[in-house]
């Protein structure tokens, strides 16, 4: 049953992209930062889990919790030291985040060398569905991604902090006038966004191989998702992530030499959608920033 294989692969990669893209959207919306180091935090989280579970022999579950906390702290510190002083200069922020990602990649290469590593699954075993092995880890990854996305939805829609984040995303100056501490909201958004990246790394790590360059492909896919769905739109990120995730898995399974073409096809879809709808699928048109 190749269809089911396609479905499961698409679901898993779609969920990962959704988590990454939503994080990227939040930080873009609330702080207007194009954070190109976003998936580097995903990579750091993966290495944390590898370190804890394989080197120290602690259960990977604890490793995941530690990884998320550590990455969130790291992201907040990096934001305070590197990004915050130059936030008004968009170009400078851009290359500062690239430089940050490069720095993380090099630090990981120095510590772990550039070999391919893997982490054992949280729950071993599989259940056969329609003759296809569905690993429990895959179900767990998918479930965890959904739970976190639900939690995030509640946080953004129901709490005061979420309201503040959405207000800042809509209009920074007016939000500031309404008594919202804009720089604190930017920091909070950074923390949430980096935490999501760390969480995405944590739940995907048993299904992939870890190496210091693992952040590049998700970064490109994540940006494609964000553009496809419409910048700053959480619903758009969610839908776009699954569209591109399924497109990728379809190409990999159905076309020969598909592994090389998966990025190309997904990005071509993005360009096609943009030709028809320049603001993406659910684009929020920001007020013309002149």
């Amino acid at each position, binding site marked *: 049953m190749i269809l089911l294989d396609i479905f499961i692969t698409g679901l898993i990669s779609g969920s990962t992209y959704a988590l990454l893209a939503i994080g990227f959207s939040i930080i*873009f919306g609330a702080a207007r930062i*194009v954070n*190109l180091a976003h998936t580097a935090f995903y990579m750091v989280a993966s290495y944390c889990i590898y370190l804890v579970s394989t080197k120290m022999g602690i259960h990977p579950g604890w490793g995941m919790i530690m990884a998320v906390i550590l990455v969130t702290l790291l992201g907040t510190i990096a934001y305070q030291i*590197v990004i915050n*002083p*130059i936030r*008004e*200069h968009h*170009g*400078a922020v*851009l*290359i*500062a985040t*690239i*430089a*940050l990602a*490069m*720095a993380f*990649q*090099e*630090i990981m*290469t*120095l510590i772990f060398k550039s070999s391919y590593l893997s982490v054992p699954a949280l729950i071993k075993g599989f259940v056969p569905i329609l003759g296809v092995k569905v690993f429990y880890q895959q179900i767990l990854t998918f479930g965890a991604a959904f739970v976190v996305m639900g939690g995030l939805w509640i946080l953004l829609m129901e709490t005061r902090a979420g309201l503040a984040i959405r207000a800042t995303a809509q209009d920074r100056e007016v939000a500031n006038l309404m008594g919202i501490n804009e720089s604190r909201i930017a920091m909070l958004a950074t923390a949430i966004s980096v935490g999501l990246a760390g969480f995405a790394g944590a739940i995907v790590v048993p299904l992939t191989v870890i190496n210091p360059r693992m952040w*590049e492909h998700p970064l*490109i896919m994540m*940006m*494609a998702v*964000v*553009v496809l769905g419409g*910048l700053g739109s959480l619903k758009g990120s969610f839908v776009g992530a699954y569209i591109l995730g399924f497109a990728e898995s379809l190409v990999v399974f159905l076309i020969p*030499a598909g592994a*090389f*073409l*998966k*990025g*190309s*096809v997904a*990005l*071509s879809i*993005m*360009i096609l959608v*943009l*030709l028809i709808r*320049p*603001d*993406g699928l659910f684009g929020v048109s920001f007020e*013309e*920033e*002149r």
Partner: protein
Amino acid sequence: MDLIIFYFRKLFTILKKEVLVLPSRVVVILFFLFVLLLPVLPVIGNDPYMLRIFTLTCIYAIFAASWDLLSGYTGQMNFGHALFFGVGAYSAALLNHHIHIPPWGSIPIGALVAVLAGLIIGIPCLRLKGTYLALTTLAFPIILIGIVFAFPDQLGGELGISGIERIARSKVISYYIIAIIMLGLCTIMWAITDSKLGIILHAIREDEIAVRTAGINTTRYKLLAFSLSGFFAGVAGGLYAHYMRIAGPSTLEVSLSFQVVIWSIFGGIVSIYGPIGAVFVLFPLLELLRFWEQGRTLMFACIIILILLYMPDGLFPWLRDKIEKECPRCKKRNFWRRKTCRICTAELD
């Protein structure tokens, strides 16, 4: 004879009254001299390795300046500038490998193919702005890399197309050809940005709607910027292919696209001289950091972050503001030690 003396005097006067009064102009003259005299300089010139580094520096300088022409001046943030470089390199390589066109023919044709690529991606991208444009342009080289990998027989796949003719027999002559092309093209780019066309492009960056209100067809100018920038980047790519004698997927990689953004913003965008200077500082610097091989990219990243924290507008505009100041009345630049303006004698603060 008198005529020669007259022109000599005129040159001397221009040098004294126009060039030597401003440190930035002196620096430009020194830069030209440095590039042209590099092979005879004592330490660098004798080392073939250093000569190779500086040849590549010249190629990347063209590339970075072409990014500034499109993304700095016109404000069309291009995150996939490696596309032009790669298309230029691959077309020059294919032309040379299969049809045996010599380098002086294959490089310009390759650049024209890059112009075509610029038009093809420019037309759909014109509808997009800002971050959308940046993230969309990022996609094009990656699509092309997928195609290169999917057709390994025609396009060489992972190994690339090798066995291309070199530009010149000797290393020094290749260096001179590339350096002179670099100086020429960069001067042309600077002249473009200094002309009326450059003013229109700059205006599009500042406020596109206002430019359109003034009766200027911005679409046409944006396409022109895409093609011009594609041409210069394509020349850089063709030179690279012929110098390295290989055109591989590394010419299309995301890291190259990011690299050019890093160079340009580090040097200071909207200046042309900034990106060129940044390449001449950063590219050899990466080689200087070779004493700690594993950590050099890390150190490189840290240096960039540190410099950006103090000079977010880029290194060279910051330096220029330190050594020169603008006259409040006539807006002419002056040496920073002067008390009065050299043109209108107004008090400088």
